[in-house]
């Protein structure tokens, strides 16, 4: 890192860079969770989906170049797609199981965390060593400054931009389209949706699968962009934090974007401080996102009233 030459200015720069780099997984998972929860189900298992996405993207990107003779520019994108599909497969299991009678969606989520991460570690074992082609990034820094520290800080992944565009699009989808209305109806008042002639099961199935697709892409970002390799520790609770993040964002996709940037920033405080040689309490700073999530939940939740913006059927066994 060139942060040493900048002295303590390296800290805000490091946090800015970390925010731009680290918030994309939060963004994709929280958008996926937002879509899922809007339909009235919770998917805690996105942590497993994220790991599965990270593993499959990395494996496909590696195999594409080494075994199938694809160009290093194309194979990571195939990896991103396959990560989404792997997410959909896990999403299907969650959607089917959590809609069985007497089955609790939170419990299914816990099971899916164990199953998804187990599957990812099992299948991903051979890919821990090799180096796969990563996704390219767009260099914004070259226009602004010649300092290499600033240039490396302002590298932005096209996936991140995709996520930023997706947030207002999803907001528009909920607000102004017919399928968006169906999703909201199923999540808010399953009885009304039933009266409209909407199949609750189908809508929830589609929402959970689509949400898991997004979470899979978030995983692909982890292994192909930042940190940019496949290890078993690549996702440390981001999938879970997304659940809290959606509550914080009041089930609004655009606010999910702001919340993700906030969390990405919180995550990079520890590394940014370390890069300037400040290493007191490193582990606690690294735990900042979890502590922050907990604090946010303590502040935003209330025993007196349901949260504004919360889908009405969320957490009930209805439908």
């Amino acid at each position, binding site marked *: 890192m060139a942060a040493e030459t900048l002295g303590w200015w390296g800290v805000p720069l490091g946090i800015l860079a970390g925010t731009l780099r680290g918030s994309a997984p939060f963004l994709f998972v929280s958008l996926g969770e937002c879509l899922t929860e809007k339909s009235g189900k919770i998917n805690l298992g996105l942590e497993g989906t994220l790991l599965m996405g990270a593993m499959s993207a990395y494996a496909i990107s590696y195999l594409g170049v080494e075994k199938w003779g694809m160009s290093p520019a194309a194979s990571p994108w195939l990896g991103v797609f396959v990560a989404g599909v792997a997410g959909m497969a896990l999403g299907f299991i969650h959607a089917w199981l959590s809609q069985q009678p007497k*089955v609790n969606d939170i*419990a299914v989520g816990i099971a899916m965390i164990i199953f998804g991460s*187990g599957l990812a*570690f099992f299948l991903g074992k051979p890919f821990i060593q090799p180096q796969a082609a990563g996704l390219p990034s767009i260099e914004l820094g070259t226009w602004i400054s010649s300092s290499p520290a600033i240039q490396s800080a302002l590298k932005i992944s096209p996936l991140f931009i995709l996520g930023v565009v997706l947030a207002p699009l999803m907001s528009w989808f909920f607000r102004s389209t017919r399928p968006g209305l169906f999703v909201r109806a199923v999540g808010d008042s399953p009885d009304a949706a039933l009266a409209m002639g909407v199949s609750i099961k189908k809508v929830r199935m589609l929402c959970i699968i689509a949400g898991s697709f997004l979470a899979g892409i978030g995983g692909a970002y982890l292994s192909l962009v930042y940190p940019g390799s496949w290890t078993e520790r690549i996702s440390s609770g981001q999938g*879970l934090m997304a659940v809290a993040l959606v509550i914080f964002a009041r089930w609004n996709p655009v606010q999910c974007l702001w919340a993700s940037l906030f969390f990405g920033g919180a995550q990079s405080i520890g590394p940014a401080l370390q890069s300037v040689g400040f290493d007191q309490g490193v582990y606690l700073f690294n*735990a900042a996102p979890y502590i922050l999530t*907990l604090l946010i*939940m303590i502040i935003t939740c209330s025993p007196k009233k349901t949260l504004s913006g919360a889908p009405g059927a969320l957490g009930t066994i209805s439908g």
Partner: protein
Amino acid sequence: MTTSSTNWRKTAEAIAIPLGALLFALVLFGLFCALNGKNPFAVYSLIFRSAFSSWGAFQGTLLRAAPLMLTALCTALPARLGLMIIGNEGALVMGGLGAVMAGLLLSFGSVTPGPEQLQQVSGIPSFFVLFGMAMGAIVAGGIWIAIAGALRHYRAVNETISSLLMNYIAIAIMNQLVGGAIQDPSETIKASSFALPAVNRLTSLPGTRIHYGLLYGIIVCILAYVLIQKTTFGFAARTAGGNVKAARIAGLPVGKLTIIICFLAGSCAGLAGMAEVAAVHGRVNESLIAGYGYTGILVAFVARYNPIACILVAILLGGIISSGGALQRNLDMPDATVLVFQGLVFLVILYSDSLYGRFKIFKEPTPAAPPPPSPSTALPV
């Protein structure tokens, strides 16, 4: 007669459905192994051989089952109150920290003993030191989960998410402490706390390599069963778990119940941490995080939150964990194989929840068909 036959059928259903689910999960796991080019029957027989076939192997299984019984209670007890706590791993880590700090204080008079203090182990009898360590673990683990319970009651924070987040926070606290405030500078491979003196460790049961933690587990599970099923307190907790509104109207102190049950739950997992530290590791470092917390959740689910059933399920799953090493060595399967199997069991068990009441055989028969209960099983349970 009618009630006893209903009970008999209910018990049979409560045993048959989880057993059937386990068998089905085994079949699915066999398919998974076959897809990966391994002979499923070789896998089954290896699991059986390395976990249950001989006394030596079974001891290894019991060693793993001991912490699982205790961590399972961390999920099973609050579940009776309708709470889904999954902070088992965090409570275990906090318990281990509490135990090692109490143990070092009682043995050397300091958590960071100097060289001359290390030479001189205090004269406090080992029984009292171990008792102090257990207390440290119970308090530390108990408070940890009680926080999640209090947040649930006072702030309506979802206890599943908060307790899960607190796992990560507990591990960060442990890393911070063993990497700084209570670090043993002579330990260079892994940041660790100071080691407990050999006299103040938990010993093995005579003639075995099983440590006393197994007894802790069995005794605590039985106590938990009595507490939940046979006392007024347990009755109040189950009532509140069944219907919070009704419990409030009946004047039950739901908040107090929540916090006490969560404290007890956390203290069980904390005790597991103490047993691991005092019998296996002798100090606190990263090896304490071995996944017992997460497997404990599964044990609680398979046992349908029944503390006695937790003992049996913990032994079963302990066997599967202890066969993980053999699967890796003999069949060259990744260590995550055990995790995949656990995930499959978990999913199938959850699915089996929707099967209760669906099988005719477990329903009260129509008068035309006389029920065939045998006298030994017809006892009301």
